[in-house]
């Protein structure tokens, strides 16, 4: 099976940011995303009071777009909001759909 290497970027963030983050991802070049409702807790745990309600947003993008997304998040969100993000390499079928 011929596959292409792309980046899967995962963003986990407090639920109120959902709409903003989705818009940001699409603006930065993502062609799609997948979102699920999760709970979690982290080092800062800013909202506390038991596990917090978060969203997890996953998007398959080119390495450049991945980089732009991580940079944008680091600049705009990491300081004050409960947001984490990471990227990994995945093998994708029909790679042209993501760029």
């Amino acid at each position, binding site marked *: 099976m011929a596959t292409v290497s792309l980046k899967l970027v995962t963003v986990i963030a*407090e639920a*109120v940011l959902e709409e*903003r983050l989705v818009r940001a991802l699409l603006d930065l070049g993502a062609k799609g995303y997948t979102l699920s*409702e999760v709970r979690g807790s982290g080092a800062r745990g800013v*909202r506390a*009071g*038991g596990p917090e309600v978060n969203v997890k947003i996953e998007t398959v993008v080119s390495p450049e777009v991945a980089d732009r997304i991580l940079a944008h998040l680091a600049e705009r969100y990491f300081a004050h*909001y409960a947001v984490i993000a990471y990227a990994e390499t995945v093998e994708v079928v029909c790679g042209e759909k993501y760029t």
Partner: protein
Amino acid sequence: MDTLELVRLNLLSPMVLAFAVGVAASLARSDLKFPDALYVALSIYLLLAIGLKGGAELSGTPAATVWAPLLVTLLIGTATPVWCYAILRRLGKLAQADAAAIAAHYGSVSAVTFLAGLTFLQRAGVPAEGFLPALVAVLEVPAIIVALIIARTATGGMNSWAGALREALAGKAVVLLTGGMFIGFLSGQEGVAQVAPFFIEPFHGALTLFLLEMGMVAARRLRDLAAIGPFLIGFAIVMPVLHGILGVYLGTLAGLSVGGSTILGLLAASASYIAAPAAMRIALPQANPAFYLTASLGITFPFNLTAGIPLYYALARLVHGGG
């Protein structure tokens, strides 16, 4: 009925007892857990139902009796956050963002507290104006706006100011309350009668179930109690009482009945935990949620639910020359 009897009547209502069971379940670390969907479904139901009922009753109310209560409610919504902010900064030495965020919560309103108040009055056989839900809708947003203006003035820059505002105005609590009032107003008593077996009659039971969950949520917040310090704990009890007195007094001035004045006191005394937290997380993320959530949800909400309601009622009777 004397005051003790009122307190007893309130504490032994299914609602307050359900809240206590929720607190106990959480402390016993029970695996009882409401699905998120149930929590959301119940809040949608409660807000819509209260709007519906209010709208239907508003349709038969002359505008002349409504404008004064609306006005004093608006006054309360814009003035209370101002002095809350000043007190939190001066006496509490809180950071600007924290003070502004807490001010937004205490200036806004808790719909569930309102519902608990109405249920209390009904049990006690005290009539109340039908249009009171309109006051809840009016009180929801102004404090959030005022607090954000204060924060902006104080700190300069601020994230997503416009966004936060739009979201507060189109927030679900406001939409459901005003949407319900719109439906109730236009379809009238007759329309509401058709949906009464769903929206009106089972209402107290649904509220009881909701308060069970609220008890669990509030108990979880109490784990942060140590973090918020004695000043804020005091603030979360004293401030509601002061606002309650103010609300009862202004309500009476505005021509509200004993029941109506009780409710306006309760509205003023209550602190938001739906609209305000969402707006603050977006517009003032540097404010620590442990402060405003623990104060409003962990302290003020249970205080009003148990002690506040009979207190404001006793005050209202006093001010109205009864008691």
